[in-house]
């Protein structure tokens, strides 16, 4: 087991280096000369050269990469935004909690939906509930998150406040907000709202939107896994011992059926942490996704790279954690 962990750690480091090299190649070497970009609109050649010297782009490639890596690993510095010279670190660290709130809250929500529905469907295949669930899954997977977000915003956000719906009028009220993010610790300067309640309140619709797609996938997967596990011989043995159905389910079926779900969950969360762009966009949440999208629009290289690197680190770390967790849960891997 220890050997396994060490090997995975080393591999994670290799992955990290590969990701940074590839990022560097894509962003620094392929497109236009970054110096030219950074120099602003219609720079003169001398200005470009000066900027180039300042940024170090007139040095050999490997030197630049080394510098980049050094800044990254040792100084923990992701650079400075071209747009406003703000440290990318600051930008990323401001945006990360937003995305994290969205993703982790969403993950909890989708698992709270998916596990009961999936297990129930597996235990009662082809029942009415199962059929309804499977139809919903189809809708959940097919419907675009932006569409879902907009519809939810409209129904729960706009309509109540406008006081009109389907030709009826009613006194307007605020039900759920459709935009904005509130810091959980309290309003910081420039923000309208703050505190945990507001934080939660503003995230309700985004959570639901985010969770629907994943819940659909997971209901289907959990259903399939549980159905398969129910047919395993050791479940029959447990029943033969006289175990009540609930215990069979809890102790024998779920433990085994959920093993692959753990892996998937880790991966999905990791990737989403890199930027749940669509949902953030619809609801105006200033997370990593929004940060990256805005940066692409202005070709703000350091920010783009910063978000990519941060996202990659998230994915690699989560991957590693999930692998270790899986190896620990499954004794066949843990004990060889």
């Amino acid at each position, binding site marked *: 087991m220890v*050997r396994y962990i*060490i*090997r995975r750690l*080393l591999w994670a480091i290799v992955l990290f280096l590969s990701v940074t090299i590839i990022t560097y190649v894509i962003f620094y070497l392929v497109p236009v000369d970054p110096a030219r970009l950074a120099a602003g609109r219609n720079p003169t050649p001398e200005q470009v050269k000066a900027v180039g010297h300042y940024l170090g782009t007139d040095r050999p490639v490997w030197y630049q990469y080394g510098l980049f890596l050094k800044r990254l690993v040792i100084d923990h510095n992701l650079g400075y935004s071209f747009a406003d010279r703000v440290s990318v670190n600051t930008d990323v660290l401001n945006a990360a909690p937003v995305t994290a709130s969205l993703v982790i809250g969403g993950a909890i929500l989708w698992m709270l939906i998916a596990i009961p529905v999936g297990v129930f469907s597996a235990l009662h295949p082809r029942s009415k509930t199962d059929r309804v669930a499977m139809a919903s899954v189809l809708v959940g997977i097919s419907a675009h998150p932006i569409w879902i977000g907009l519809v939810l915003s409209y129904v729960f956000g706009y309509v109540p406040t406008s006081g009109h719906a389907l030709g009826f009028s009613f006194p307007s009220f605020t039900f759920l907000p459709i935009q904005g993010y509130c810091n959980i610790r309290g309003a910081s300067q420039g923000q309208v709202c703050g505190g945990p309640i507001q934080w939660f309140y503003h995230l309700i619709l985004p959570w639901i939107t985010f969770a629907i797609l994943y819940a659909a996938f997971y209901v289907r997967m959990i259903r399939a896994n549980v159905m398969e596990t129910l047919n395993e011989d050791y479940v029959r043995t447990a029943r033969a011992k006289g175990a009540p159905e609930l215990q069979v389910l809890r102790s024998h079926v779920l433990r085994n059926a959920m093993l692959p779900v753990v892996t998937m969950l880790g991966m999905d969360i990791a990737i989403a942490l890199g930027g749940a762009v669509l949902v953030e966009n619809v609801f105006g949440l200033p997370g990593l996704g929004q940060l990256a999208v805005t940066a692409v629009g202005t070709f703000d290289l350091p920010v783009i790279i910063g978000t990519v690197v941060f996202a990659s680190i998230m994915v690699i770390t989560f991957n590693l954690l999930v692998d270790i967790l899986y190896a620990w849960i499954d004794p066949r891997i843990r004990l060889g």
Partner: protein
Amino acid sequence: MATATSEETTRPAPLGDELLRVENLEKHFPITRGIIFQKEIAKVRAVDGVSFSVRRGETLGIVGESGCGKSTMARCVMRLLDPTGGKITFDGQDITHIKGNDLMRVRRELMMVFQDPYASLNPRKRVGYIVGEALQVHKQGTPKEIKGRVQELLDVVGLNPEHYNRYPHEFSGGQRQRIGVARALAIRPKMIVCDEPVSALDVSVQAQILNLLKRLQREFDLTYIFIAHDLDVVRHISDRVGVMYLGKVVEIGTALDLYQHPKHPYSGALLSAVPIPNPRAARSREPVVLEGDVPSPINPPSACRFHPRCPRFQPGTCDTIEPVLERKEGSASEVACHFPLETWPMSDLRLPSGSTPR
């Protein structure tokens, strides 16, 4: 290590000349450990020095239990695996390490029937394709000719040629195994290796497949290596039988000799363990029951592999000197044992007191 055995020349039946000869065949699988650089720390000695030969037209049966290496040995002979040691000579040619086109040519002569009729047929391919694939690969005729041959083969193995376009799942286990046999037969090989071909089948179907194999052997002049763990089945179809234990052959002789008078204590235990479908006989005998499990092929016991479980174990001899597979006086079988069985049946395999190694 067992040395190469001398060629037998006193066989009464005029079978053909030697078709396959295996000398000191070894197949070891490395077990590696290491964080970055994998280092070999142990080996699974699946096949550890096996020698035998098969004559044209003969059926050699190989029996043994799990972990004895018989399947690995079969795959080495078929060159589905690369031997890590030893030599395999097929029809006069050394095929131990051949590759590429040379291997392709040999593949036409040497085919295999597998154990699991449910897993060994590609469920997405039609039966006609499955049976005719070898013919296609080796370009043995136009598609029309191949189809004709395939239908002939389906008929030969007792299936309806009209079912050419069906899928494997539309057939029963026994029928699927017939398809497997037809597939092996298609290219007119000289030798067919059957790896537990009837183990997964019902008793009455087993008998049908065995009869089929025997008939085909006569009709098509085939040589068989028949691997199984069911001793009754092996006896029935084999001319000679070899018993394997932990990667080595411990006894090899004619079927009649082995079953009427096994020499190796393991063969004795094996035979004794087979339930006899005759209640009075079964209940009046004292079967020999071995203790413990088969040891792991990673760390086989020293000298005689069977010594920790052998009822005739003699310390000082069996655990220090490795017995050689050789003919002992008074018998045509070869056996690798210091204290081979004197008589059979024996209720007690233990050595009579005062015995000396032979």
